[in-house]
């Protein structure tokens, strides 16, 4: 019970403003407020402060936030995105086509396959570049032969190993790139 001569303590006023008082306490505070201008004024101040706190600005997420999370969950409106592995097989096919065209061009122009290099400056450079790449491949092949002897055989196991290696590498790059790009949206 609040004596008529006392003022309501501030924590009680705050609890009253929050709506956190028991029924009896609340009635007692109301009764006191009806006869005490000073406490009524304090109560109004607390309410105004509360309103100001409720009006504090709320942070806004970026415009693509919901779409990004839905995408990561595979719930985008466009449906589940194409699996990365399938995309990577596409990249691999593209890479093989480009390499095939290049090799055909080299064979046709004679850089690879028996024609002498001294047939012009351009072919000389091309031959030099070919040697450089060739020695790199040779070194890599040597490394593979040492550590993965089965991989450098000409059988199906060796070819499968190379294909797996390339696809795995592309998948890792793709995964990292995707995570980075999605974080930035």
């Amino acid at each position, binding site marked *: 019970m609040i004596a008529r001569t006392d003022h309501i303590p*501030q924590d009680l006023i705050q609890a009253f403003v929050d709506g956190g008082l028991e029924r009896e306490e609340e009635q007692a505070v109301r009764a006191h407020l009806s006869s005490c201008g000073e406490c009524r*004024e*304090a109560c*109004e101040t607390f309410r105004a402060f509360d309103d100001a*706190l409720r009006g504090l600005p709320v*942070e806004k997420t970026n415009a693509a936030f919901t779409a990004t999370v839905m995408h990561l*969950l595979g719930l985008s409106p466009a449906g589940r995105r194409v699996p990365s592995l399938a995309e990577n097989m596409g990249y691999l096919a593209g890479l093989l086509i480009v390499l095939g065209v290049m090799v055909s061009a080299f064979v046709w122009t004679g850089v690879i396959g028996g024609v002498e290099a001294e047939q012009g400056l351009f072919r000389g450079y091309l031959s030099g570049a070919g040697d450089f790449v060739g020695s790199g491949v040779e070194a890599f092949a040597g490394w593979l032969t040492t550590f993965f002897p089965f991989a450098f055989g000409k059988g199906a196991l060796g070819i499968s190993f190379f294909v797996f290696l390339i696809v795995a590498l592309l998948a890792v790059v793709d995964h990292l790139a995707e995570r980075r790009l999605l974080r930035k949206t």
Partner: protein
Amino acid sequence: MGPVKDPDQEIVEAIRAGNTRRYAVLMDRHKDRALTLAVRLLGDREEAEELVQDGFLRAYNNLEQFRGDARFGTWFYRILYNLCMTRVTRRSDRNRSLDGPEGEVTEKDLIASDDPGALQQIEESEMRDLLAAEVGRLPESFRVAVTLFYVQELSYEEMAGVTGLPLGTIKTNLFRGRTLLRKRILSRLKDEVHVS
């Protein structure tokens, strides 16, 4: 705590029934207030957005564990709060101060102001700016209580559920947080009067 009427319950049921795209509606309802909580806890917007994103991913993947005893929002804020506090703890493990922007708080600061009426003389926009700055400087426990109560609009019981703190501690933190805010704002006003 008995069953709570939850405006999100219908959407949660729809998602469980297979209408998974409605999760976007749930996110749109909570994402901004979730980000506000995370920014207040971490003080870094980019990091906060990353954790809110992780929070929504975890909430979706664990939706089966949501029993509906509390509101979806309360359940989700608990996930987010735990993620943020784990990050804050990791920071403190790296010897970064948690009390960075808060300044020192003395017992005197927590005694109720003797002149709260002076606050009514402040213009609304000025009060908003002052509050926005001062809330960010509150000690972490007070900042959490003030944010959960005013931004997330949670009840005392829900705040206790989110933070795992006893109800009495929640009430005390909220009261002290507000008291400290009032005192600091009044003090800044006095300083401004002295300067001018």
